[in-house]
Each structure stands twice: as C-alpha cells, then as structure tokens.
C-alpha cells in the first residue's frame, strides 16, 4: 500500500540540525515532484530548548500542515515526550535507543536507529548524523536517491570532493540501515513522482519579497520583529539588484516615515512588521491616507496583545488593520490565503496603492510567513503592474491652468507629481487641504475632501482581487473565512465531501473595503454561514455582520495555533446538525 500524503516531523534540541535535516528532505522531495509544505515551531527559549521541523509530502496539493504526524524522528527524550501525542497511533517512530526510551504502552511502529553510533563509529564522522537521518527517512517514503545525491553535491561542493563523498556515504548508511532493518516500510511509501515538478519552494515571507520586487517596489524600510524580519532581510539582499534599496530603520515610526518619504519622492515603497510595530505606525498610516501617498504595509500577525507570544499564530490584527487610525482614515486591507497567494496579493497591494494613492495593508501571519511550500512558479509576463498616475503638463491634474495635486475627479483619484517635475510643486500634508493642497478648515472643504478620499475605496472594491473560492457552489452551508485559515477550511471541505457533507467556501482577499459583488451573493445564497477564525472576538465575523446583518455561526480558537482540520470538521458537523 502506498499513500499520497505523509507528515514527517523531526524533533530535538534547537540548533542541533533539526532545521538542516528538514530542509534537505524538503528540497529533495520538491525535486522528486512531491508537493511539500513545511511547518515549524521555534522554541520559546532564546537558544536551545525543544524545537521541531515538520514536512508534509503529498502527491496532490495539500493546504494545511497536517493534523498529526506519520513519521516522528525523535533526536532526544524530550522530543519523544513532547511529540508522541501528536503522532498517529499507527505512525512510525524513529529514534536512537542511546537517547530515547519510548514508553512501554506505545502503539507506534518503532524503529530503533543507532544514529550516533553509525555516525561516530561506522562513519567516523559524527556531524553527519543528520545526513544519516535524511537517508533513513527518504528511504522510508521511497524517495529516489538521485535528488539527494545531487543536493548533497551542490551543498558541500565548496568544501571539496572528500567532504561530498563522506556525506554521500552517510546518506547511503542511513538508506542501507532502513533497507536492512525495516522490511515492512511499504506502509509509508508515497505514490511515485507526481506533477509538482517545476514548482518552486518558497516561504510566505519570501513570496512577499518576490511579489514586491515584481510589482516594482524600489524602497523598503523595516525594523526587526518576529515573524516579519525575514522580509526585510530578503529585500536587503535582493532589492539592490534592481537598483532599489532596503534598510533597517531605528524603529517602526522611522520605517513608515521613510516609506512615506520614498513614496513622495516617486518610489513604490513598503515596510513589513508585526503587531507591536504596526501599532507604532498608526499615526503615520493616517498621514498616508490624508496626503494620499501610496504605500504598502505588511503586518505579519502573531499572537497578541502586546508582546504576546512572538512565535505563535493568531489572526488578531484585522480590527487594527481595518479600523485603527484617528479620524476617518481610508485604507485598503488585503489578506493572502496561501503562501502562493502571498506573491500575488503583494503585487495587488502595490497596484492598488498606486492606483488609489492610499495605504494598503497586507495581513500575513506566523503560519503563512514562516511556512515553506512548493508552489507553481508564477508566470511573470502574466503579472500586471500598475504605475503611478502622473500629471501631465497639458492634460491630467490641471485646474485654472495650474497643477492641483488634489483636483476633484469622479473616482477620487488625482494625478500626482514627482519632485523634479516642472510645475508639479505641492506640499504633501496631514492637514485638511483644498484641491491645491493648501490647508483649509472650512466645512465644505472637509466634507468634499472626506468624500473624495472614501470614493477611492468604493472604486477599489469594484476591482478587488478575486476572492478565494472552494467547494460546492450549490451547498447550503457556506464558510466565510479569511487569510491562512483558508488552508484548513479547504481540507475540511474535501474531507466533508467524502462524507457526503457539501460545503462551500468564500474567502475575500480584500477585507477592507469588502467587495459587495462577491460577498452579498454568497451570503444571500446560503442557509447557514459559518465564520471560523483564529481570534477571540470574531473580528471578521463582526465586520461582516455590520455590513450584512443576519445571523452567523462563529467558530473561534485562540491558543496560538492554527485550526486542526479534524477538529474544525467536527465542529462544523455539530453546527450544521443544529440547523437541519
């Protein structure tokens, strides 16, 4: 029997090769044509402490991390103790008997694997322990060795032939041990190579960075914060290749300030942060809205409030993204629904920012930003990039013969100028202002200009990026959700279908403003609507209710973890039962 879905978890002490073991396997599986989706949990300690790296391999695309573990590789006793409960009863436990003693009543298929002994005594190369483990695991699920061979070559070539050979030997030792000692390993073998070859392996943070570059971003300022730092670090390295620049500011107030300066000066500019930093940017979010400066703010959400749990997951910043800012402060909020979508929604964020001259907030989260996944390689010449609408000397943006930065237009968008442009001088300001940009406090000006700024959002809603749809459009039960929870929901729907329960999902990618043409028909066509989200008050559910008053079923968790597919399905079953 072969399977088409396998979850492998490598667990042990942080910093002891957990991540490198996982990554080697991940890349080999990618090249092997599997779909790969990773999940890891950094330790709460500053260094050391327990950590794991999980890989889900599948023939078909998978959408969530996987509820439970098929193969657990436990490097030490703590790793066994902490992860045994999440391992399936018929799962496989691989462990070094010199480190781990499984409990007596364990149901697992157990493979004693003298990792340390092999590395130290057989290979005389103790640090190759991880490569031995990789060989063993790969053999368990039947990964062709060629991919591992070439990866090892690429990785250690710089250290010379001898090192490459030693690692190849280690790999072989792991493979051989499994062949010899685990005869019934069929149960863990995966379908042979499938159609995911040619995909790229990318994390959400990288996908955002790539999207930014593709969209024409030329400036990024950030300040380190988990789980957003990776975006800054990615762009610090790669943005200069296009002539752009990314830098570390002295704090988040400075980061957003720099972004607005860069935007004023003509650049497509962004920052990336997490909750605490985002909170510090709120005053200048208002400045961007008032001065109508395009900019993109990525908020990679983590569990809050305050410093909260920096390495844990939560969809807790939607309120903040949608409503923070003093006064009536228009902005657009996008939420990608998968790692792949991080790329596309980042492009959309820049396009919308430029087109509507307004701040755009992109809501990532710990799950999306940290996860690596194999995704189809985006086709770049299908990616549409929108540039700034500039005033022209004898067309756009003129009034009484002069350039007027905030000239009133039907859609609220006024042509911009860029410093250096002849006749384009104006003062960007957070004060209320007239069409010329001069500050004015009269009733008429404030009324008209407020309407102008919000008119842009009305238009933007009509052009919202298409919502994520999945499931049976005829189903009477609808699931309305957003962001990374989509992954769990898709798997719930798939599983429910096999049980005969029909479900339909709509996940708007633009959360503020909502695209009425998508949301209303969905809501009106369903008998029951369920809104699952990873937060306490039901932030999305409240937003939906205020715009589409009716009853909704809310499902909320808030423990710092994403939805388990089995748990969510069970909950939905219960809820649906009440309505039938």
């Amino acid at each position, binding site marked *: 029997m072969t399977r088409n879905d396998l979850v492998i978890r490598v667990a042990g002490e942080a910093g002891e090769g957990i991540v490198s073991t996982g990554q080697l396997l991940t890349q080999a599986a990618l090249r092997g044509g599997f779909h790969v989706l990773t999940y890891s949990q950094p330790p709460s300690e500053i260094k050391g402490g327990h950590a794991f790296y999980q890989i889900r391999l599948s023939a078909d695309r998978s959408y969530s991390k996987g509820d439970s573990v098929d193969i657990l590789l436990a490097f030490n006793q703590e790793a066994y103790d902490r992860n045994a409960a999440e391992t399936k009863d018929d799962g496989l436990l691989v462990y070094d008997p010199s480190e781990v003693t499984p409990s007596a009543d364990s149901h697992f298929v157990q493979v004693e694997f003298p990792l340390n002994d092999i590395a130290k005594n057989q290979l005389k190369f103790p640090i190759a322990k991880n490569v031995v483990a990789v060989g063993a695991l790969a053999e368990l699920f039947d990964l062709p060795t060629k991919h591992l061979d070439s990866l090892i070559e690429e990785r250690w070539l710089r250290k010379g032939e001898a090192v490459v050979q030693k690692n190849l030997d280690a790999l072989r030792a792991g493979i051989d041990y499994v062949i010899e000692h685990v005869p019934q390993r069929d149960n863990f073998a995966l379908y042979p190579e499938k159609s995911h070859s*040619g995909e790229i392996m990318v994390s959400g943070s990288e996908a955002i960075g790539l999207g930014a570059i593709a969209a024409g971003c030329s400036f990024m300022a950030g300040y380190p914060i988990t789980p957003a730092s990776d975006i800054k670090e990615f762009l610090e390295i790669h943005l200069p290749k296009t002539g752009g620049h990314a830098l570390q500011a002295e704090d988040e107030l400075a980061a957003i*300030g720099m972004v607005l*300066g*860069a935007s004023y000066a003509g650049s497509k500019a962004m920052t990336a942060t997490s909750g605490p930093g985002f909170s510090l940017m709120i005053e200048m979010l208002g400045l961007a809205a008032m001065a109508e400066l395009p900019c993109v703010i990525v908020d990679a959400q983590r569990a809050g409030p305050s410093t909260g749990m920096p390495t844990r997951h939560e969809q807790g910043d939607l309120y903040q993204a949608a409503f923070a800012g003093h006064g009536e402060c228009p902005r657009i909020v996008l939420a990608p629904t998968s790692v792949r979508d991080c790329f596309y929604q980042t492009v959309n964020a820049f396009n919308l920012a430029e087109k509507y001259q307004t701040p755009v907030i992109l809501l990532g989260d710990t799950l999306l930003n940290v996860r690596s996944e194999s995704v189809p390689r985006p086709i770049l010449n299908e990616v549409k990039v929108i540039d700034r609408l500039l005033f022209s000397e004898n067309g756009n943006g003129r009034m009484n013969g002069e350039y007027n930065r905030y000239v009133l237009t039907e859609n609220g968008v006024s042509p911009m100028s860029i410093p*250096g442009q002849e006749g384009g*001088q104006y003062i960007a*300001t957070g004060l209320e202002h007239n069409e010329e940009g001069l500050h004015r406090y009269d009733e008429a000006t404030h009324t008209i200009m407020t309407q102008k700024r919000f008119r842009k959002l009305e238009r933007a809603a009509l052009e919202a990026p298409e919502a994520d749809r999945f499931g049976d459009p005829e189903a009477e039960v609808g699931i309305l959700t957003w962001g990374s929870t989509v992954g769990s929901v898709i798997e719930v729907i798939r599983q429910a279908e096999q049980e005969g329960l029909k479900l339909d999902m709509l996940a708007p990618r633009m959360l503020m403003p909502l695209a009425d043409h998508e949301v209303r028909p969905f809501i009106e066509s369903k008998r029951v609507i369920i809104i699952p989200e990873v937060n306490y008050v039901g932030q999305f559910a409240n937003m939906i209710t205020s715009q589409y008053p009716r009853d909704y079923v809310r499902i909320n968790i808030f423990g710092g973890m994403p939805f388990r597919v089995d748990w969510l399905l069970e909950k939905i079953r219960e809820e649906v039962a009440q309505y039938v």
Partner: protein
Amino acid sequence: MSSVVTVEKRKVNDYKGEERPTWCPGCGDFGVLNAVFKALSEHNFDPKNVIIVSGIGCSSRLPFFTDAYGFHTVHGRAMPVAAGIRAVQPDMPVLAMGGDGDAFAIGVGHLIHAIRRNLNICYVVMDNAVYGLTKGQTSPTAERGLATKATPQGASDPAVNPLLLALATGCTFVARGFSSKPKELADLITRGIAHEGFAFIDTYSPCPTFNTVNTFKYYRDATEDLPADFDPSDFSTALQYAASEDPLYLGLYYQAEQPTFEDHIRNNKPELTNSAMTVVENLFDQMS
C-alpha cells in the same frame, strides 16, 4: 546654429509661494524664511528641484510659504521622511525645517539617527524654547524655571544643548544661527546645503507671543560670533565652545568629511542592475 543659454540667476522672490505666512507679527520665523530664500537663490536652484520637509509646529508651516516641493509631515518625524526621500532621490537638495519641540522632544531619537547616518540634508531648527503652535508650553530648550502662560510653574528640567548633542552623535556640520542676523544665517544655510552630509543649524528664532524671556533683545545680548580665527575642523574646541553658556556663540562650530547615507546607498548597488522581472526569474531559478 548653436544658441547661447544665459542662466538667469534666480532672485529671492522666485522661491516665494502663493500662500502668505500665517505667523504672528514679529515672529522670528520670518527672518529664517527669508534666509532660506536667500540661500536657495545663492545656489540658484530651480524650485522644482528642491524639497523642504518639516514636522508640525508654527515653524514647520514654512514649506507652505515657498514655491518648492514640500512635505509637511507629522510631529517629530521630519527626519525619517527626509531619509526616505534621499534614499530615492539622492541628488535632489533636501532642506528640513522645524521647531525645537519637534526636533528635541518628540523627534530627538530620529534626529540622532539621521545624524549618525550622515544623511546629506540641511536641517534648520527654529529654536524659540517653547511650543508656539500649541500656545506656549516650554520645550526641551527652555532653561530650567522658564515660566510661560501655559506652564506657569516653569520648566522643571534643564535645557538640552542641541550643539553638544549633535557633536556627540557625530554630526559633520554643526552651526548656530540667529533669525535677526539674516545675512549670516543665509550664509550658514548656503554652506549647510553645500555640505556633503548632515548639516545641523540650530537657529534662535524668538516667539514674541508666548516667550517673553527669550526675546530678540535677549539673544542679541547673550550671543557673540565665534572668534574670527575659530577652526571648525577641531572637534574638541568645538565641544568646548558648544558647552559655553555665556556667551552663546553664533557661527559654524564644526565641519568634517565622512561617508554619507547616500554614498552607502550608491555603493550598495551592483554596477549593472537588472529589471525587476529578471531578478525575480533568477530567484525563482534558485528556489527550484
């Protein structure tokens, strides 16, 4: 067939905006505005190639009264905005203008980092020891005990010394001006603009409406020009003069050459850059 282009030297009036200053009669900021016009005309900049950034305060309204590009930001954040502008347009002259509250209270953290980066801008702080726009509270440059209508109990903390602060954080051009010495002030600003790096000019600019102690007369009596033979390349002498409380010296205290923020940005780019899509394709390749 060749034509001779006569570059007409621009006049002060060429930099005036349509909007008339809203300052109180007698405000020191008028003098500073004129000095800015003069400095810009000295450089003969085309107004469309100049950007003036400010924070919030009476003084920070200055960009509205000019014909340059301008960004009237929020309170205390002129420095990061200026840095963002320079990162993108490293060749366009940027002036930053604002008040002492803006620079030394809410904005002082950014000031220090702008100085540290040696951001190539000229920053003129219009120092009146009070918050003018919010009606006269004491600012960080108010001497301990200075009482105003809004703060009748008087300032409780000693004043910040902006020059020492700038010197200690590595500022490469440190000067003090006075609104009622328009020629000297214009000259300092002209040189500050010409300076490659962060030019900091703390400028006494009295607020007759809310500060009845630090008046024009007060500063006229308290100030003195730096000695004629003063050597602005000597850091420790600069520190010494900057620490002086009586007299308060006017002029250029210190100037040095150091790599700038803009140098770093230029150096950080490869000689040949690629189109965005090419860079992304290459990264995709590496990720397969």
